[in-house]
């Protein structure tokens, strides 16, 4: 089974749309992508217990890479690790990658059957194509 992915965001709509975008890169391929986003009332917020449940649901034994937006999403993702059983926790990677770019890199790699360290590395490299492309263009200031 491929590595599973979890998307953590303050916004359910943002997370769902990011997953739709990523799945668009995976025609005909299976991939477990779970979402833990929004607060208990459907507003903006994050919930470590929901993240822990999403990780458990996404894990088929080969581990999970968690992508997240920022701020309390990071703190909640780390807190979720404390709520997981030791054996599951060892199979989870919290990715510092940017959410959208990282998720797409991770989804394509995971669906191709890569191990979670490779999936996490590809997520982290998610910004590289855009940076390479735009930094090669005409100078727009900065240094």
């Amino acid at each position, binding site marked *: 089974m491929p590595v599973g992915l979890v998307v953590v965001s303050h916004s359910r709509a943002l997370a769902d749309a990011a997953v739709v975008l990523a799945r668009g890169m995976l025609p005909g391929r299976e991939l477990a992508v779970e979402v833990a986003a929004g607060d*208990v009332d459907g*507003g903006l917020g994050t919930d470590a*217990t929901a993240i822990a449940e999403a990780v458990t649901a996404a894990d088929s034994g080969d581990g999970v890479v968690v992508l997240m937006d920022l701020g309390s999403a990071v*703190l*909640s993702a780390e*807190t979720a690790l*404390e709520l997981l059983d030791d054996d599951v926790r060892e199979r989870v990677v919290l990715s510092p990658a940017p959410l959208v770019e990282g998720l797409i890199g991770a989804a394509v790699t995971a669906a191709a059957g890569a191990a979670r360290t490779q999936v996490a590395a590809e997520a982290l490299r998610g910004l590289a194509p855009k940076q390479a492309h735009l930094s090669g263009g005409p100078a727009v200031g900065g240094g």
Partner: protein
Amino acid sequence: MGRASAHPGAALGCLTVADTVDGAALTAWVQEFARLVHEQRDALTELDAAIGDADHGTNLDRGLAAAVSALDTEAPADPAAVLKAVATTLIRTVGGASGPLYGTFFLRASSALGEGDGAALAVAMRAGLEGVAARGKAEPGDKTMLDALGPACDALDEALTANRPLDEALRAAAEGAARGRDATVPMVARKGRASYLGERSAGHQDPGATSATMLMEAAATALAGRG
């Protein structure tokens, strides 16, 4: 398990810090914390509006109301279970950064809580403080709740080491927290949304340090007379 209406120390007429911090005492602490936050909800949110995202009061009020309600329903049997139930409820219901931060405080305090006396409470609070520091990757002076919790735990340890009774020690802890809270005003925020403001965050009291002071004031009020 009944409420701690009487204990051996009181019966003997001597002030000890032993056998006083049971599940009922911890429940009373959380109830008092919830009451203070509810009362000051708008003030907390106003502080957060100045440098944060204007949700600290409403988020924490919602989380603590849920925690009080969970303790009412579940009535956990032992003191560590009380703190654990508070932790998981806050994590689930707060939504903002104070959820995982206060959640981690109570989670680590729950794990570290030994036999229910004052010294055990101090150890649990110190473990909670260290959990908050680790979770937020914050240091003293970053203009966070740590700036209130740190001086509070230091004052609590110092008072207990000097063999002062628990209620006095907790009063000293609350005063330490308040001094630490006041000291956040000139600080420049280095964590959270406020850190984007840089120098412009100076001149505002930190909302996290303000609610953390309420946590310590609640302990001093709710646990008074128990040691």
